[in-house]
C-alpha cells in the first residue's frame, strides 16, 4: 500500500491529490499551511469586475483524501521516509510531493514591512480593507500583479500611482508593444506611472525616493515578484537553485520526492532549467506530478501560458517571449491584436494577444497548438486576419 504525502494545498498540491485519488490511490494525505480550504489565487488580484468578489474557494472534491489544514512541515526525514509537522506529528510516505509555492519578495528598502504584499487571502483582505474610495495608493512594481492591483484599486475609487525601478512596465515576459497598450489603458483611467525610480525607504503611509522626495499615500503595496519556498527542501538536503530542482519528470534529487508548481525549477525539454510562475503551470505540473508519483515516465512538456486582466482589456500569452525574435502582427476586428514570434526557420515560438475581455483566447490557444507541433508559419499568413489560425493548424497536421 503506497502512502502519498503532499505538502502544500494550493493548485499544484490539490490537483496532484485529486489525480492520485482518481487513479485509485487510497492513502493520499494533503497538508495545507493555511487554516482554510484552498481558494483561487488569481482572483485575489483579479476580483470579479462587477461585485469585487476576490475569495473564491476551489471546487475540488476532497472525498477519499486525508486533508490536514493549518499545519506545516518543519522537516523531512529521508532515511525513514517521514515528514515531520510543526506539531511534532510524523507522516510516513512512500512518495512525497513538495508543492510549497512561493512568497512575495520583500523590498530591500522596507525592512520593517510597511508596504503590504499580496499572496494569500489574508493579504488581499488587508489590502482591499484599506482601499477606500477617494484614497490614494502607491504600487511599487509595474509587473502583472502590480498592474492588476492598480486596475482593481482604481475600480474601487482610489487614485493610484505606480513606481517602477525598470525603464518600462511588464519588463519580464510581455512584449513592449503590448505593455504599452496596457499602460495606456491604465493612464486613461487615471493611473500615473514613474519609471526608473529609486526608492530610499518605505515608511508608514509614505515612500521616500533616492532624490529625497517623499510621496504620501493611504496605502502602499509592493509587488516586486516572488521567491520560491525552498526552506523545507534545503533543510532536507535536496538540490535547490532558484527553486527545488527537478528533472523533466518532476523528480527531485531524491527519487522518492517530487516537486511541482511555483516552487519547482524544472529541466524542461524545450526551455531547459526554468521555473514557471503561472496558475496553469501549477495546475498542469500538479496533475503531471501525480502521474510521475505513480511511475509514469513521460516528461512535462506543457508550454507556459497565462492571462492577465486590466480594466476591460485581457492579455493572454503562450511560450516564452524573446524580444530578439522576428515578429508578426495580426489585427483583430474588435480592436485587439496578436503578436507572434518566429525563429529563423519560421517555426512559431511564442504568441501574445491583447483585446477586449477574452477576445484573444481562441487564437492564443490555436497558437499554442501550432507551437506544440513545431509548425512552420509564414509571417504573411500570421499577419493576415482573413486566414484562420485553425486552417494553419490543419496544414501543419
Amino acid at each position, binding site marked *: 500500500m503506497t502512502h502519498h504525502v503532499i505538502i502544500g494545498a494550493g493548485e499544484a498540491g490539490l490537483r496532484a491529490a485529486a489525480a492520485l485519488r482518481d487513479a485509485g490511490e487510497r492513502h493520499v494525505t494533503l497538508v495545507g499551511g493555511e487554516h482554510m480550504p484552498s481558494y483561487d489565487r488569481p482572483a485575489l488580484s483579479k476580483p470579479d469586475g462587477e461585485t469585487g468578489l476576490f475569495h*473564491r474557494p476551489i*471546487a*475540488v472534491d476532497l472525498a477519499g483524501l486525508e486533508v490536514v489544514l493549518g499545519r506545516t512541515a518543519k522537516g523531512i526525514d529521508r532515511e525513514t521516509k517521514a515528514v515531520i509537522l510543526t506539531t511534532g506529528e510524523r507522516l510516513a510516505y512512500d512518495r512525497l510531493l513538495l508543492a510549497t509555492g512561493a512568497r512575495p519578495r520583500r523590498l530591500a528598502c522596507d525592512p520593517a514591512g510597511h508596504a503590504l504584499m499580496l499572496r494569500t487571502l489574508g493579504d488581499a483582505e488587508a489590502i482591499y480593507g484599506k482601499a477606500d474610495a477617494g484614497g490614494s495608493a502607491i504600487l511599487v512594481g509595474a509587473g502583472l500583479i502590480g498592474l492588476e492591483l492598480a486596475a482593481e484599486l482604481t475600480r474601487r475609487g482610489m487614485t493610484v500611482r505606480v513606481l517602477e525601478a525598470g525603464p518600462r512596465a511588464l519588463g519580464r515576459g510581455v512584449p513592449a508593444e503590448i505593455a504599452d497598450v496596457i499602460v495606456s489603458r491604465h493612464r486613461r483611467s487615471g493611473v500615473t506611472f514613474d519609471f526608473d525610480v529609486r526608492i530610499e525607504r518605505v515608511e508608514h503611509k509614505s515612500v521616500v525616493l533616492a532624490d529625497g522626495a517623499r510621496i504620501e499615500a493611504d496605502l502602499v503595496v509592493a509587488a516586486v515578484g516572488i521567491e520560491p519556498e525552498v526552506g523545507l527542501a534545503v533543510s532536507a538536503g535536496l538540490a535547490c537553485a532558484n527553486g527545488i530542482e527537478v528533472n523533466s519528470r518532476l523528480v527531485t534529487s531524491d527519487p522518492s520526492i517530487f516537486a511541482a508548481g511555483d516552487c519547482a525549477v524544472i529541466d524542461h525539454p524545450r526551455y531547459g532549467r526554468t521555473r514557471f510562475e503561472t496558475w496553469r503551470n501549477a*495546475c498542469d505540473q500538479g496533475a503531471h506530478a501525480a502521474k510521475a508519483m505513480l511511475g509514469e515516465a513521460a516528461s512535462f512538456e506543457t508550454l507556459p501560458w497565462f492571462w492577465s486582466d486590466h480594466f476591460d482589456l485581457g492579455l493572454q500569452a503562450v511560450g516564452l517571449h524573446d524580444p530578439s525574435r522576428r515578429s508578426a502582427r495580426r489585427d483583430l476586428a474588435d480592436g485587439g491584436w496578436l503578436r507572434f514570434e518566429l525563429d529563423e526557420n519560421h517555426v512559431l515560438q511564442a504568441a501574445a494577444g491583447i483585446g477586449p*475581455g477574452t477576445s484573444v*483566447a481562441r487564437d492564443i490557444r490555436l497558437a499554442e497548438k501550432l507551437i506544440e507541433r513545431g509548425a512552420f508559419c509564414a509571417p504573411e499568413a500570421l499577419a493576415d486576419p482573413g486566414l484562420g489560425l485553425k486552417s494553419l493548424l490543419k496544414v501543419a497536421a
Partner: protein
Amino acid sequence: MGTWTRACATDDVELEDLLRFDHGGRSFLVIRSPEDEFFCIDGICTHERVHLADGLVMDGIIECPKHNAHFDYKTGEATRAPACINLKSWPVKVENGDVFVEI
C-alpha cells in the same frame, strides 16, 4: 416541455465553430460540428461566470477562454478541470435552413 425557438440560420455558423445566442436573459451557444450537426449548450462556464463564446471549438470540445476548462459540446459534459459541473445541453432541430432550440 419547452418552446422551439429559432436561434439562427444554419449559414450563420461555420463548420467547427459556434454562435452565441441570447434568449430570455440567458446565454446559449449553437455549435456546428465538422460533420455538420448542430448542438446547443449553455453559454456560461460552470466554473466562473465566463462567457464561452470566445472559446475554441475543436475535436469535439469547447474550451473556456479563461481557465481552459473543457466541455464535450455534444453533451455538455465537463471533461477537464477546473470545471466539474456539466453544462446543460438543449434539444436542437434544423428546419428549412434555420436552427431551432427547445428552451
